[in-house]
């Protein structure tokens, strides 16, 4: 049954309930590139994301996700190009470091420290540390402060790491595969407390994952990296609203494909299924075609299979 998804809002119209248009740019990368020993991990990466978003960075393994996040966190320096966070360049300066929190994939913590000592670590190393927030979060999660970090469960360790990142009170929280190596309950718990933190502190979050389904409900902006380049960058609702699966007779497929960008095209003798990107104001009223919406997962998969297809903002964004 695709009835519910055969919505009539064909041709745009989504995005009217989105965050205010004047929200500043949280994250801006301009022609960002990184080379490791002769191999480009990231090349010519340009994107711009407004503040207050939860940004999903997806892509296959080796697409450059970690490299991109490490560049944003200031852990590595770009070979070319630049990254700015709220207009300021990232790098090894205390003010720049204070603006970004980073949660590495393994969620490293000092195993021999107690949870309370980890909080003290955060307090000593961050002028903007919010100790009340940290303690409240840990109390809500029932994580004992006097327990050694190494004795906590994987999910609890991830929560402590997230708490430290959030209590730093950054403008931007960068998370590299936050859900990897966690059991389903812990994954859900982490996302719940992350979303609560976003609701509470107006954080902008960038998180990477190679599992799109983990992010479907949590993220409202999607960036797809493929082979070191940005393939999609856009608001999730808008992407979903501007992509349609068209099913119709094969003999009409070529005509349809000529009218709009086709991301995926699968044809049998009788029926063709085209995943198309529709611009604003391109209505389709041909009754021979069945129009249905696509899920985020289908959309990402279709793009990853076609590395040359891109869905990037139209050039209205200012670049510096």
């Amino acid at each position, binding site marked *: 049954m695709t009835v519910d998804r055969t919505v009539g809002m064909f041709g745009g119209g989504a995005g009217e309930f989105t965050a205010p248009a004047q929200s500043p740019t949280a994250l801006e990368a301009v022609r960002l590139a990184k080379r490791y020993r002769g191999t480009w991990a990231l090349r010519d990466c340009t994107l711009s994301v407004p503040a207050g978003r939860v940004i999903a960075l997806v892509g296959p393994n080796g697409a450059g996700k970690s490299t991109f996040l*490490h560049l944003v*966190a*200031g*852990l*590595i*320096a770009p070979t070319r190009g630049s990254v700015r966070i709220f207009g300021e360049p990232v*790098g*090894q*300066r*205390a003010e720049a*470091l*204070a603006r*970004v*929190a*980073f949660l*590495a994939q*393994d969620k*490293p*913590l*000092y*195993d021999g*420290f107690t949870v309370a*000592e980890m909080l*003290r*670590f*955060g307090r*000593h*190393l*961050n*002028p*903007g540390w919010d100790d009340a927030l940290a303690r409240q979060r840990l109390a809500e999660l029932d994580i004992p402060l006097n327990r050694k970090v190494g004795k906590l469960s994987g999910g609890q360790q991830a929560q402590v*790491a997230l708490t*430290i990142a959030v209590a*730093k009170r950054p403008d931007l929280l960068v998370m590299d595969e936050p859900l990897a190596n966690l059991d389903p309950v812990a994954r859900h718990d982490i996302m719940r407390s992350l979303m609560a933190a976003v609701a509470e502190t107006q954080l902008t979050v960038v998180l990477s994952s190679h599992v799109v389904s983990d992010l479907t409900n949590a993220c409202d902006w999607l960036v797809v990296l493929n082979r070191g380049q940005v393939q999609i960058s856009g608001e999730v609702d808008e992407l979903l609203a501007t992509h349609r699966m068209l099913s119709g007779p094969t003999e009409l497929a070529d005509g349809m494909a000529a009218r709009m960008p086709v991301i995926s095209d699968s044809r049998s003798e009788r029926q063709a299924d085209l995943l198309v990107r529709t611009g604003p104001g391109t209505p389709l009223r041909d009754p021979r075609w069945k129009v249905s919406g696509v899920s985020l997962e289908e959309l990402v998969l279709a793009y990853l299979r076609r590395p040359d297809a891109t869905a990037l903002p139209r050039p209205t964004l200012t670049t510096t």
Partner: protein
Amino acid sequence: MLWLTWRQHRMQVLLTTALLAVLGVVLLISALGTAEFAAQNAPAPECVADTPACSAYLGEMNERIRTVGELLGWLSLLAPAVIGAFWGAPLLAREFEQGTHQLTWTQSVTRRRWLAAKIVGLGAAVTLGGLVLAGMVEPWLAAFDVPPYNVDRFDMSWFRLVGILPAAWWLSAFVLGMATGALFRRTLSAMAVTLAVCALAFFGLLRAPSSYATPERVVQATVMDDPAPDDSLYVTSYWIDGSGVKYTSQERELALAGPCGTDQTTKKYAKCSFSHGYRQVTEFHPADRFWQFQWTEAGILLIPALALGGVAVRRTLRPRI
């Protein structure tokens, strides 16, 4: 920052302090016992070694200094190695190994400040530890320096336990460990390399101090008990003939076998060799070179260690992970 350094490395700090304290107690007991023994039993300073009272005293003092001295001898090798392996090597290697550098480097403190706090804080602690060791060994040695027994700190048994050398050895081993840790990024390999390099440096430099300067030379034509002055560093002694040609003892023995006999231990034999134109040469470093030699060895250790440390610090500060 200092809190973090202390929290991460308090085990090493506490353990080292405890070991130094134990050693302090051992040295104190030994020194007090020796001082008491010397006060009661020291014969006249100018006693002749062969007299029973004199030799008994010297023998007892020797025995007393030997038991603790052996321990200290090992310490001058082991302490720097252990400092390098357990203070220096894990300092950065463990962070890399456990990925915690990614946590710490993304807090609001720059890498430079974080690294400075660690290196300066722990480096100062290590240096202080070395100075404390020297400060404990010197009074202990002084307790034995009751004539006719003579101890001097220029002696190779004590040279690396007094003055600034313990501090120099400890600090350079610490910096070496830190640097290998930063370069290898593996605690165990950094420890192994640090231990190996410390041992190499120790045995390589074991006899090196005598060549830190050109030794002074005494040419004797009469029998002297001890040609090198008190508290000096003996280097070597050999024989020359009237024209200054150097003789090994075997060559001299052969040449003198006829006129002087073969019993070389007697003063008569020595007199006989002098009368045949042979002169005994003794090379030594006078006592006032003590500090010069201390600083020379400190430089030999610290300059390469700090250079390596500088490379490691530069690499760590570079924005890479």
